[in-house]
């Protein structure tokens, strides 16, 4: 009856927590949470914005066939079907001529405003010798087959302003051509592949939406390919393919790992406790802990960060030791259904174990990084909730003692005696332990830290090869860095961007980089446009100079009347960013800026940087300008997060030491509770160093888990020893704790994904080492603190 009421109350709590979580669940993945408070987060906002720009949502599809004409026809049909797909925002299949026309419509009336990005050169560009050279060049162009294009523009633009704009725009588009003059379908320069640019509505990283879209795309293509006897070949590039492949791969991996976990734990509990009820009891504190931590975090913080939820839930997994420890003692020491005489002896160890874990989590949170604070809060709340369930909910639910298991008693006896024997062999054990720790410490400086996030996930090599091949076909490099210009308003940003473009051009001329793609090629700052207009129109006797230069080159003087009229007409207002975005060229512009909450970031894509120092030097002194590489930036953030986490683990150890010192009020037990765990941390890092394992943030967070469990193991041993009790039940509990953890976390080491493997290896190895180093606690306690079999018989 009492158990029923308790279960009812717990059920009500879990129901309320579930309701709260369902109604208020809001998980973000904001890496600003991983940066120290007060950091300049503008670049983080840029980094975040880059994942949602149309460029990041755009796939490149190439369709090939033995007969290119069939590929073009297939691409045309695929484009039509994709345009009808509600998941697709836009399909660009042949906008080349539209862009040319749009460029003419937008820039030709403003050709003087965009005459030169260096107005100081305008007098020279419009000097009589320059115009004479221009006229001679125009005459030579007229003699060429392409001269008919020149001829159409020349009467209104004899100074060659529009060709200068066209030359700038040419650097922005992909290296593609129309199939022919009757079909604007874009094809690669070698005419072998038709090309489509498909922009999805959903972010590339929205797993479900992208999974559905890619399935749709595959089915659509398969249909039209079947109609052409399988003659077509589709290849694609896009971030969404990697996101979906990673998700699919992790799902498969997790399914495999979960199967091993469930199978292992079920077998373990059936063997150890001969009931699955015990398994449910062990799970209760963890489930409650995570549920309470989730809804408390939502109530306190309003939302949860994805990393907080993931790592926090893993850290709360540490509490599995408490119910397992409790059940092991019940299994071996409970005589009747109501016998709880063993509980007062076990409870202090569990409480201390939980509080040492809480202390280590608090240590993790004493930092200015919001993500770590949230992670610590989540783990502390979860741990305390799980402790409360272990202490107050589980005991009434234990029920009658299980049938006797002699093997378990014998195993416990053997383990207890083994521990005591090891503790008695100080001369052998102490030098071995100290030498191992010393060796591990010596290896620490050689530890290889890996903060490159891309190494955390296994990328499908064939997907990567296809990506690179497709991007190469359309002339897109995927190693582009960015120059980011930050400003509070577009006008200021554009002015800075003009300066950046000039300086990058100088750096390019000196060989520091191969090229760049800038919004500057589409848009000058209004002030620069006005300066251009003013200088061109105020050039003394410009009409006369033009006429004389061209007449000297054999042109009729009256041919340039349209130029005279254009100069006399009032200039248009400067082109603005909004105006550009609203034009048909907006799709080109939208990939080159990111609106921010407070201001704007303009992006210049740089490629082939040979001398980064020279590029940085070229950009020096321009306010709000950063040379930015998304991958490097994120890696730096995570490296900082990893370093801070590592130092906070050390802080956690100090807090744990203080706590156990307060609890035991003696040095030896306090050290006995902490030293084995420190050994494990040292030895594990030493092993990683020795084996050349590249360690990362996930190893560090996992080490914190291991430390929490290791301290728990030591506390259980120290408490049992101090009570002068044999270690039989405690050791059985530790072995079960260890095996449960190996099955729940250790099996992750079988994952194909480096990230999951890091967690599995660290935790699996760590808990095994924690079990093996548990005798160190007895050694530190000294002979007076040893357990006593005589005491057991007395007790």
């Amino acid at each position, binding site marked *: 009856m009492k158990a029923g009421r308790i279960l009812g109350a717990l059920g009500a709590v879990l129901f309320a927590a579930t309701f709260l979580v369902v109604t208020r669940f809001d998980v973000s993945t904001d890496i600003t949470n991983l940066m120290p408070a007060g950091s300049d987060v503008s670049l983080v906002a840029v980094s975040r914005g880059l994942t949602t720009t149309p460029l990041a949502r755009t796939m490149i599809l190439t369709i090939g066939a033995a007969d290119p004409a069939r590929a073009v026809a297939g691409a045309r049909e695929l484009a039509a079907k994709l345009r009808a797909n509600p998941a697709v925002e836009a399909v660009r299949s042949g906008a080349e001529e539209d862009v040319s026309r749009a460029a003419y419509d937008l820039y030709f009336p403003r050709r003087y405003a965009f005459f030169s990005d260096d107005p100081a050169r305008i007098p020279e560009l419009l000097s009589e010798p320059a115009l004479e050279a221009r006229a001679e060049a125009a005459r030579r162009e007229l003699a060429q087959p392409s001269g*008919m294009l020149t001829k159409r523009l020349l009467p209104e633009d004899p100074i060659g302003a529009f060709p200068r704009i066209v030359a700038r725009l040419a650097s922005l588009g992909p290296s593609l051509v129309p199939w*022919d003059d009757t079909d604007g379908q874009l094809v690669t320069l070698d005419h072998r592949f038709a090309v489509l640019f498909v922009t999805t509505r959903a972010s590339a990283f929205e797993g479900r939406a992208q999974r559905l879209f890619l399935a749709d795309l595959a089915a659509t293509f398969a249909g039209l390919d079947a109609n052409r006897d399988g003659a077509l070949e589709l290849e694609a590039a896009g971030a969404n393919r990697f996101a979906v492949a990673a998700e699919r791969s992790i799902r498969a991996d997790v399914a495999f790992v979960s199967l091993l976990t469930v199978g292992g734990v079920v077998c373990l509990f059936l063997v150890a406790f001969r009931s699955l009820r015990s398994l449910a009891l062990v799970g209760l504190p963890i489930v409650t802990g995570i549920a309470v931590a989730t809804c408390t975090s939502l109530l306190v913080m309003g939302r949860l960060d994805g990393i907080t939820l993931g790592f926090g839930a893993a850290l709360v997994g540490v509490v599995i030791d408490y119910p397992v420890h409790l059940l092991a003692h019940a299994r071996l020491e409970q005589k009747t259904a109501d016998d709880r005489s063993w509980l007062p002896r076990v409870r202090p160890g569990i409480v201390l174990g939980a509080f040492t874990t809480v202390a280590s989590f608090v240590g993790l949170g004493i930092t200015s990084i919001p993500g770590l604070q949230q992670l610590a809060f989540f783990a502390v709340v979860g741990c305390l909730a799980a402790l409360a369930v272990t202490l107050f909910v589980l005991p009434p639910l234990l029920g009658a003692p299980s049938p006797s298991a002699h093997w378990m008693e014998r195993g416990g006896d053997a383990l207890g005696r083994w521990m005591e024997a090891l503790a008695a062999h100080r001369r052998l054990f102490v030098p071995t332990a100290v030498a191992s720790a010393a060796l591990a410490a010596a290896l620490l400086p050689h530890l290889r830290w890996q903060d490159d996030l891309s190494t955390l996930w296994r990328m499908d090599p064939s997907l990567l090869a296809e990506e690179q091949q497709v991007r190469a076909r359309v002339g897109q490099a995927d190693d582009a860095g960015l120059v980011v210009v930050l400003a509070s308003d577009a006008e200021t940003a554009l002015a800075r961007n003009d300066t950046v473009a000039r300086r990058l051009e100088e750096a390019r001329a000196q060989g520091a980089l191969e090229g760049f793609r800038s919004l500057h090629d589409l848009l000058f700052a209004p002030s620069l446009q006005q300066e251009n207009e003013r200088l061109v129109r105020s050039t003394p006797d410009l009409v006369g100079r033009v006429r004389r230069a061209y007449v000297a080159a054999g042109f009729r003087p009256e041919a340039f009347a349209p130029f005279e009229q254009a100069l006399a007409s009032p200039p248009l207002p400067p082109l603005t960013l909004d105006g550009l975005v609203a034009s048909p060229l907006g799709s080109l512009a939208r990939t080159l800026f990111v609106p921010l909450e407070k201001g704007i970031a303009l992006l210049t894509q740089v490629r082939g940087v040979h001398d980064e120092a020279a590029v940085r030097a070229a950009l020096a002194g321009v306010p709000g300008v950063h040379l930015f590489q998304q991958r490097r930036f994120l890696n730096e953030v995570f490296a900082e997060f990893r370093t801070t986490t590592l130092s906070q683990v050390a802080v956690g150890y100090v807090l744990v030491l203080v706590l156990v010192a307060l609890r035991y009020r003696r040095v030896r037990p306090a050290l006995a509770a902490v030293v084995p765990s420190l050994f494990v941390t040292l030895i594990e890092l030493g092993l990683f160093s020795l084996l050349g394992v590249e360690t990362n943030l996930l190893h560090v967070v996992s080490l914190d888990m291991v430390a929490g469990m290791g301290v728990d193991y030591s506390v259980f041993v120290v408490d049992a020893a101090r009570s002068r009790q044999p270690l039989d039940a405690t050791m059985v509990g530790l072995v079960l704790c260890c095996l449960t953890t190996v099955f729940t976390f250790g099996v992750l080491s079988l994952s194909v994904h480096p990230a999951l493997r890091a967690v599995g290896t660290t935790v699996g190895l760590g808990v095994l080492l924690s079990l093996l180093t548990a005798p160190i606690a007895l050694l530190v306690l000294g002979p007076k603190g040893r357990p006593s079999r005589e005491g057991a018989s007395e007790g």
Partner: protein
Amino acid sequence: MAIALAPRAGMALELDELLRRMAATPGVHARFHEVKEIALLAAPLESDGEIFFVPPRRFARLTSAPAPTRFVIDGDRLSFRDEAGGQQIDLARSAVARAVADNFLVLWNGDAAGLAERYTAELDSSGERWRLVLRPRSDRVASVVKSVTLEGVGARLEEMQLLEPNGDVTRTRFEDVRTDAPLTPEELARAFGEGGAR
């Protein structure tokens, strides 16, 4: 080598036959003299030079006067080098420029389907002498080219006249036309630059 082009009953057959024989040439080399009558210019613009064609899609037009220039279609790449001080430019992005350039190829590469897709064609022939008038089907090309008239004897092109919508006209007279032998390595290198003899 003179190639006979016998008049046939149907124009399509005659055109097919012309194209087949033109396409059968292993290479073309000729000198040209071109006169452009352009409204912008006070006097006609004259130029001299050579043309080279290697089937199926390599073409070069080199001028020697009034200034050295090189216009090349090599496969799907087009370039123009103004050796009087200009620089190489990629014309491949311009559909119109491509269409104009294709005028040079459409006849020699014997692509009857391509010709029919791009132009309406009228062929008059008398014995081996023929006159082919091409009018672009595409509005975009028609905005810059009204018609192209080609005249020749057998597989030998003798004159090309390009008429623009504004009345400007370009007349190109070909001389020393050689259609019966592949281009020599020296000619290929001269036409297409280093590595051109592939």
